């Protein structure tokens, strides 16, 4: 346990939907299921137009180690496979399925047979699970660290530090039994010294519930955390719950920790009982343009517009639609964008709230420096990015540890001059990557001579 907690930015909570029991939306007429939901390689489509599919039918198989299979979220007929633009800027295959409205589960789905770690790992991979906290790292890849025998602690992320979002809160309150089963399941394959739930104190119901459910498991610790942002950032969460520091360039597994989102764990527990892969998500629909905020269970691939319509639409003109919350969510360009595996919230902002603020000169107030949970100097990056000499710029940025930036947005949030600090950091990271690739290529070329 750490004495001083990291992450102390007061963002508004706006947990309007904390009490809202998720409502299942009816089968959409059509879904567009992207082959890419995470970092890593997109899945390869294994269906063709005209194929009959059911809920849970495999439509895309994992292409490589860091990749994850994709399943149909409705029953119906494959209409087409088309290239669609994703927010990362690439064109990725999407399988478009026309729903028959029946939502018939695939009759071939089987409960996975789990006897040892290898069969468990295969089952996790087949479930299509990726980290549901937002980053979407394929869970099977992460859990493989357990097989290596280096893991001592399991940290379960129930911080949910973004404004508005309550889908993890609902998981902890409603599916605490599944969480118990999930912890027991993982404990079969790894002798954890400790299992810690990190939950922000603004979720007293979830904390009480989990304390009750895990009362007889001494190795499980429910760790209430300050209700400040960004408690859910992986490295912040690990530090604040266990006191461990993940060194630069290393993974949590290197300090013996695996971090898992609570909703991911609950899904895993339900998958090993039912065999139904990841095909639907609990989504918080909220934001200044939403008339009545709600939690919705939506099939993956449903268009955002349909989900928004289902909760009763908007109360004013839409300015911005975000996948995720307002601190780290990604702005999308159309409400036709599909729900992804990692979508835990749809935040819709009014035109007034969507307008980017006018940025003025840095007044050196140091708020960004105090706010940065990683101990970085955000204003320095902005200055280094202005250096015209590429090599000098990249060296300076690396000295200042640009690679440690977790892009949580604290610096931009607190800046009184409204400077786009985190945006600068992203540009800086890209510049360093680009410089390294170009020098590596040049070095290779020189070596060939």
């Amino acid at each position, binding site marked *: 346990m750490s004495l001083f907690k*990291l992450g102390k930015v007061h963002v*508004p909570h706006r947990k309007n939907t904390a009490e809202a029991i998720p409502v299942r939306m009816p089968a959409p007429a059509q879904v567009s299921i992207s082959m890419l939901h995470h970092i890593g390689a997109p899945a390869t489509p294994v269906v063709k137009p005209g194929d009959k599919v059911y809920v849970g039918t495999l439509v895309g198989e994992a292409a490589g180690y860091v990749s994850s299979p994709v399943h149909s979220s409705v029953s119906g007929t494959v209409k087409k496979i088309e290239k669609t633009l994703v927010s990362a800027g690439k064109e990725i295959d999407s399988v478009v399925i026309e729903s028959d409205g029946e939502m018939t589960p695939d009759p071939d789905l089987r409960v996975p047979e789990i006897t040892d770690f290898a069969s468990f790992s295969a089952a996790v991979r087949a479930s299509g699970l990726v980290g549901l906290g937002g980053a979407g790292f394929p869970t099977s890849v992460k859990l493989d660290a357990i097989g290596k025998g280096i893991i001592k602690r399991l940290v379960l992320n129930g911080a949910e530090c973004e*404004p508005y979002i309550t889908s993890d809160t609902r998981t902890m309150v409603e599916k605490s039994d599944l969480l118990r089963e999930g912890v027991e399941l993982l404990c079969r394959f790894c002798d954890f010294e400790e299992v810690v739930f990190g939950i922000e104190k603004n979720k007293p119901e979830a904390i009480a519930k989990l304390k009750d459910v895990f009362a007889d498991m001494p190795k499980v610790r429910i760790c209430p955390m300050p209700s400040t942002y960004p408690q859910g950032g992986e*490295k912040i969460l690990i*530090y604040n719950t266990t006191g461990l*520091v*993940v*060194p*630069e*360039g*290393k993974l949590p597994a290197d300090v013996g920790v695996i971090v898992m989102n609570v909703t991911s764990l609950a899904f895993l527990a339900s998958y090993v009982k039912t065999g139904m892969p990841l095909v639907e998500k609990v989504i918080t629909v909220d934001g200044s343009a939403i008339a009545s905020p709600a939690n919705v269970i939506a099939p993956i691939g449903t268009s955002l*517009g349909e989900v928004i319509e289902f909760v009763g639409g908007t109360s004013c*003109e*839409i*300015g*911005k639609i*975000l996948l995720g919350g*307002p*601190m*780290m*969510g990604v*702005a*999308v*360009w*159309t*409400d*036709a964008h599909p729900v992804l595996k990692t979508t835990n919230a749809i*935040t819709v*902002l009014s035109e007034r*709230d*969507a*307008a*980017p603020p006018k940025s*003025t*000169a840095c*007044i*050196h*107030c*140091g708020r960004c*420096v105090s706010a*940065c*949970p*990683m*101990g*970085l*100097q955000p204003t320095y990056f902005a200055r280094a990015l202005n250096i015209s000499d590429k090599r000098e710029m990249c060296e300076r940025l690396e*000295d200042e*540890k640009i690679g*440690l930036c977790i*892009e949580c947005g604290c610096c*931009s*949030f*607190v*800046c*009184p*001059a*409204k400077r*786009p600090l*985190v*945006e600068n950091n992203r540009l800086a990271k890209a510049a360093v990557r680009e410089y390294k690739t170009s020098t590596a290529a040049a070095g290779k070329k020189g070596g060939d001579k």
Partner: protein
Amino acid sequence: MDKQLVISSSPHIRSTASTSRIMLDVIIALVPTTVMGVLLFGIRALAVIAACVVSAVLGEFLFNLIAKKPQTVGDLSAVVTGLLLALNLHADVPIWQCVIGSLFAIIVVKCLFGGIGCNFANPAITGRIFMTLCFTASVGGGASLAFGKPEVADLTTSATPLELLSKESDALPSLLDMFLGFKSGAIGEVCGAAILLGFLYLVIRRVIHFEVPLIFVGGVFVLSLAITGNPLVSLYHVLSGGLLLGAVFMATDYVTTPITRLGKMIFAFGCALITVLIRFYGTYPEGVSFSILIMNILSPYIEKWTLKRPLGGAEK
């Protein structure tokens, strides 16, 4: 969907803090000091304040206009500079000197270095020092108009309460008078009580960290005590000259102090040390302005030494 949605980088919400709001808070915090200054020194003080503020704002406005830079007077920082400079002056300073000092502070110290956020020295402090050097008779620790005889004392020869104290003179004001402002001095420097109010406001509004004024003022007290061995003299040192005004409003300037919290504390201690050294061993009776200016110059180095260690950052 025909409508163009806004696409921008996260975060999509911002805090309510803004540069102009911070400057407004500083102005609000200076209201008690300003009001007390006008009450103590009369309408002449108001004229000095008006001259400084108007010429600072106008100076920045015209500079931006001529240099074809985006207009920045809306951020209110020029108002703060003008007001602070005025509060550092005597009520009997000729208006034309106020105008020149104010223009120097804004144009030479601030605008020529790139405007808000780019100046390395505090404009009001540097403006005051400029005026001290140019018009020695009018600035700083001399005599007042409203209280005491309207003698025009030379800055370097006028009797400070400290000198009076050492001579056990009857002219020495009581500690309470010193705290409330019934003594000679600059418009905004005399009333410690009003400055304290402003300090509390700024801390509550989280505009400044409480440590900086505390270390600066506390440092002067402790160091004076170490030198004189007399707590009473040390208290007079705390309440005299521009210490309180400087510690609360100028040593806490964002632009010209280190960005890190530890750096700010070192900055404050450095100010205290230099102030005491000048007061006890220098030729000038008052050292606050010079101490802040010297520490302004050292700020980038202090900042560099006190940068936070990144979480898990590998050593090179």
